[in-house]
C-alpha cells in the first residue's frame, strides 16, 4: 500500500518552501528557525510535541502571523503572506480543529463563503452554483444534500465541507490540523481515502497530528519539529515509529510502563443500574471499585459522554438508579455531584474546563473555595495560601509555567490539562471522571497524565476514563467497558484489554444486549 501511495508524487522541486523562519512572542522564541518544503500532490506529515512550533508555523502560512525572519518561496519566487486573503489567493487552505464554519448557513453557502458565485440577471443563482459545486462535492466525498444546515452535520461531515471549500478555491495545499481528533475510527478511514484522492489530484496535504500511526499510514514524507526547530525531514518509508518518537522527544524513549495493578477491596464506590436517558443512554449498568481505573471505550456517539454527564449532574437520568458508597445518588447539578465527591474533567477543556484569561492560581482556587477561606464561616479568601497550594500543585504535576499568576490561556494543551486535573486533586474526590484526558496533548505530557491517573487510583480514587483513542485505554485502565449505541456491549479485563479488542467490540452487532457487569 505504501508503494502505491508514493506513485504520482512529483519528485521535482518543492512548490512551496519555507526556510529558517523565526518568530518571537513577547520574549518567548516560538520558532528558532524552521524549514519545511512541500511538493505538489504529497501528503506531508508534520509532527512535534505541543509547543514545538507547529501551530505558529501554520499561522504564518495562513497569514495570521508575520515571521520575524526567514524566507517563504512559492514556485521559486519569494513571497510575503500578509493576510489570510493572500494565503487564499496563493492557493493555501487551512482546516483547523475548531472548524471555521457558519452554523446557521447550509453546507453550500459555507462552501461558497467569500468565493465568487454565479448570478443570473444580477441575482445570486444557487441552482447554477450547485451545478458547479456538485462534482467537486462528490470528489470530496460529500454524500449528504448540499443544502443541509451545518448544525445538523457531524464533525466528520463538517470536515468534508471544509475540504470541498478548499477544492472550490482550487487550493494547491490543504493544511489539516489534528483532523482525526474528534472523528470515530470509521470516519477516520473515510477521511484517509479522501486525502489519498486529493494527493492523486496533485493537491498537497500538510497533515498535522499527534497520532503517529496515522502519519505512518498516510504520509509520503514527515517533518518533525522540536522546540521551535525542524529537527528531521525524511521519507516516511525510511522511518519507523520509534524514529519519530525519538525525534519528537529528543532522545531515547522508554516504553510506557503499566503501573502496579491496584488491589481492589471489593467494595463498590459506584453502582449504576439500568440507567436510561433518551436517546444516547439505553440501559447501562456498571460497578466501580475504590482504586480502580475503568475505561469506557467505543465510537464517538456511543453514549459515553452522555453517561458521565448524568453522573456529574449535568443531565438527569430518566430511568434507573445510581448508588454512591451505598447511598442513592441523583445529583441535580454539578455542584451537588461535587459535594458528594464526584469530579469531572470535561473533554472540551478550553470551552468547558478553564477560565483562560485567569491565572493558574485562580483556576486552581475555583474548585477549592471552601478550603481557602480564612475561617469556615468567613467568606474571605486567603490569597497567599491559594498561591502556595497552587504552586505545590504545579510542582507535583510538573506544570510548565513561569509562575502561578500565568494565565492558563498561555499554557500548552498538556499543561492546561494538568492544571485542570490539579484543580480537582486537592479536593480528594471519591470518583474522578476524565473525558478524553489526553486529546491534543503531546507524548511527554500524555505519559505524565497517565502516571498521574494511576497514582490517584493507587491512593484509592475510583477513576473513569473515556477515550476515543483505542491505544489509550490499554495504557491506563484496569478494566474497559466498550459501549455502542447507548449500551455496554463488552467488558475487557487484564490481558484482554487491547486496542484490537476495543475496536472490534466498538463495531458490535446492532441489537447487542446489555451485558451484566461486575468488577
Amino acid at each position, binding site marked *: 500500500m505504501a508503494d502505491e501511495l508514493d506513485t504520482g508524487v512529483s519528485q521535482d522541486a518543492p512548490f512551496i518552501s519555507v526556510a529558517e523562519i523565526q518568530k518571537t512572542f513577547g520574549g518567548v522564541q516560538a520558532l528558532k528557525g524552521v524549514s519545511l518544503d512541500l511538493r505538489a500532490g504529497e501528503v506531508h506529515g508534520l509532527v512535534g510535541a505541543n509547543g514545538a512550533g507547529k501551530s505558529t508555523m501554520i499561522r504564518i502560512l495562513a497569514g495570521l502571523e*508575520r515571521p520575524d525572519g526567514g524566507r*517563504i518561496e512559492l514556485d521559486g519566487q519569494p513571497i510575503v503572506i500578509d493576510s489570510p486573503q493572500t494565503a487564499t489567493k496563493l492557493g493555501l487552505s487551512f482546516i483547523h480543529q475548531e472548524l471555521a464554519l457558519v452554523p446557521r448557513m447550509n453546507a453550500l453557502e459555507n462552501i461558497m463563503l467569500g468565493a465568487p458565485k454565479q448570478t443570473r440577471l444580477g441575482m445570486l443563482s444557487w441552482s447554477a452554483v450547485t451545478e458547479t459545486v456538485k462534482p467537486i462535492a462528490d470528489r470530496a466525498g460529500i454524500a449528504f444534500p448540499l443544502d443541509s444546515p451545518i448544525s445538523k452535520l457531524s464533525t466528520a461531515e463538517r470536515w468534508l465541507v471544509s475540504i470541498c471549500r478548499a477544492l472550490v478555491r482550487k487550493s494547491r495545499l490543504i493544511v489539516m490540523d489534528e483532523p482525526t481528533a474528534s472523528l470515530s475510527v470509521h470516519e477516520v478511514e473515510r477521511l484517509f481515502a479522501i486525502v489519498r484522492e486529493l494527493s492523486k489530484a496533485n493537491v498537497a496535504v500538510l497533515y498535522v497530528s499527534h497520532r503517529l500511526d496515522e502519519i505512518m499510514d498516510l504520509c509520503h514524507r514527515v517533518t518533525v519539529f522540536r522546540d521551535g526547530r525542524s529537527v528531521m525531514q525524511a521519507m516516511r518509508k525510511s522511518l519507523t515509529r520509534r524514529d519519530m518518537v525519538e525525534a519528537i522527544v529528543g532522545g531515547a524513549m522508554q516504553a510506557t510502563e503499566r503501573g502496579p495493578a491496584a488491589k481492589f477491596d471489593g467494595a463498590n464506590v459506584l453502582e449504576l443500574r439500568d440507567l436510561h436517558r433518551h436517546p444516547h443512554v439505553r440501559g447501562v449498568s456498571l460497578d466501580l471499585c475504590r482504586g480502580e481505573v475503568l475505561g469506557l471505550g467505543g465510537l464517538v456517539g456511543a453514549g459515553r459522554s452522555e453517561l458521565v454527564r448524568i453522573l456529574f449532574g*449535568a443531565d438527569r437520568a430518566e430511568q434507573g438508579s445510581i448508588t454512591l458508597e451505598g447511598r442513592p445518588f441523583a445529583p441535580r447539578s454539578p*455542584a451537588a455531584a461535587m459535594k458528594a465527591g464526584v469530579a469531572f474533567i470535561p473533554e472540551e477543556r478550553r*470551552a468547558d474546563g*478553564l*477560565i483562560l*484569561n*485567569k491565572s493558574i492560581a485562580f483556576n486552581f*482556587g475555583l474548585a477549592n473555595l471552601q478550603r481557602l477561606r480564612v475561617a469556615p464561616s468567613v467568606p474571605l479568601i486567603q490569597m497567599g495560601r491559594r498561591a502556595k497550594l497552587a504552586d505545590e500543585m504545579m510542582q507535583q504535576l510538573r506544570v510548565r509555567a513561569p509562575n502561578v499568576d500565568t494565565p492558563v490561556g498561555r499554557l500548552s494543551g498538556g499543561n492546561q490539562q494538568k492544571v485542570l486535573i490539579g484543580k480537582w486533586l486537592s479536593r480528594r474526590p471519591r470518583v474522578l471522571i476524565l473525558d478524553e484526558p489526553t486529546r491534543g496533548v503531546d507524548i511527554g505530557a500524555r505519559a505524565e497524565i497517565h502516571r498521574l491517573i494511576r497514582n490517584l487510583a493507587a491512593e484509592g480514587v475510583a477513576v473513569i476514563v473515556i477515550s476515543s483513542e483505542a491505544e489509550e485505554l490499554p495504557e491506563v485502565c484496569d478494566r474497559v467497558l466498550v459501549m455502542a449505541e447507548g449500551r455496554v456491549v463488552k467488558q475487557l479485563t487484564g490481558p484482554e484489554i487491547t486496542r484490537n479488542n476495543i475496536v472490534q467490540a466498538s463495531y458490535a452487532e446492532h441489537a447487542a444486549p446489555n451485558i451484566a457487569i461486575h468488577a
Partner: protein
Amino acid sequence: MTDIPRPKLEVGPVQMPAHKPVLALLARYGTILGLCLMVVVFSALSPIAFPTLGNGVNVLNQASLAAIIAGGLTIAVIVGELDLSIGFAASMEGVLVTGLIVHGGLPIWLAILIVLGVGALIGLINGLIVTKARVNSVIATLGMGTIIVGLNFAYSSGVPIVAGVPEEFLEISLGRFYGIPHNVIIMAAVLFFLWLMVERTSVGQAIQAVGGNPAAARLSGINVDGIKILGFVASGVCAALTGILLASALGSGTTSAADSYLLTAFAAVFLGSATLRDGEFHVFGTFIGVLIIAVGFNGLAIFGAPTFYQFVFQGAILIVAVGLSSLGRVLSEE
C-alpha cells in the same frame, strides 16, 4: 533520514511591528496617564481654582454618586451582563424615598431601607428574566428601565416632591464628618466593600469565573444563574443608594434626576476595564474611570465651558473608553 540543510540566516522583508509594546503599555496605563495629564493641565491653566484641597474634596464629592452606581454596574458587567435600568431606577428610587418620607410619613431610616429593598427587587427581577427566561440582558434591562420610567410618572405625575422634605434627610448627603462630605465616606465604604467582595471572597471568585467562562464555572460546581442574579442585585442596590443620596442632595424627588448616571456609569466602567488589567472589568478601575470623568467635568466647569460641552465630553469619553478596553483585550490575546 536526511537532515535539513541550514542556509545562512536571511532576515526576510517582514519585521515584527515595533509599536505593539507601546500600544500595550498605553492600553494598561493610558487611563491613569490621562487622569494625571488632565490634573497637570488643569493645574497649569487654572493654578488658583483647580489644584486646591477644597476643589479636590469637591471633585470627590461630585464623583461619589456616580462611583456608587458605577460600582454596582461593575459587578453586573463582571458576570457578563449589562444593566441599562440603573439610571431610570435611581431616578424612580429618589422620587420614592422622598415620597415615602413626605407623603407616607415614614421614618427616614425605614424609607431608605424600603427603597434599598426595592433596588434589590428590581435587580432580582432583572436577573430572573435574564437567567430563567433567557432574555438578552440589554433587552431585559432596557425594558425594565422603561417600565420603571412609567411607574415613576404614575407615582409622581411628573411633579417633583419638594415641599416638606425634612432637614435630617438633606443632612445625609450634605453633611460633613471632620470636613469630609458624607457622600465621599459612603462611596469609599461601598467601593471598598465591592472590591473586597470581588477580589477577596469566595463569592467574588465565582463572580469572576462566571464572567470568564460560564461553562467552566458550572462544571466547577458554581451556581451560574445565582451568581448572575447576584450581579444584577448588586447593581440594583447601588442604583437605589445613588438615587436616595441624589434626592437628599437635591432636597427633592425629581422624576428624571438620575437618568444621566447611566451613561456616566458605563463610561466609567469601560474606562476602568482599560485600567491596569487588559480589558477586564474591576472595581478599582471603575473608581479611576469615575475620577477621570469627574475631573473632566470639574475642569470644564472651572473654565466656564457651556453645559453642552459636558455631553460632548461624556459621549467622547465613552467611545474612547470602550476603544481602549477592546484594545487591551486584543493586545492581551496576542
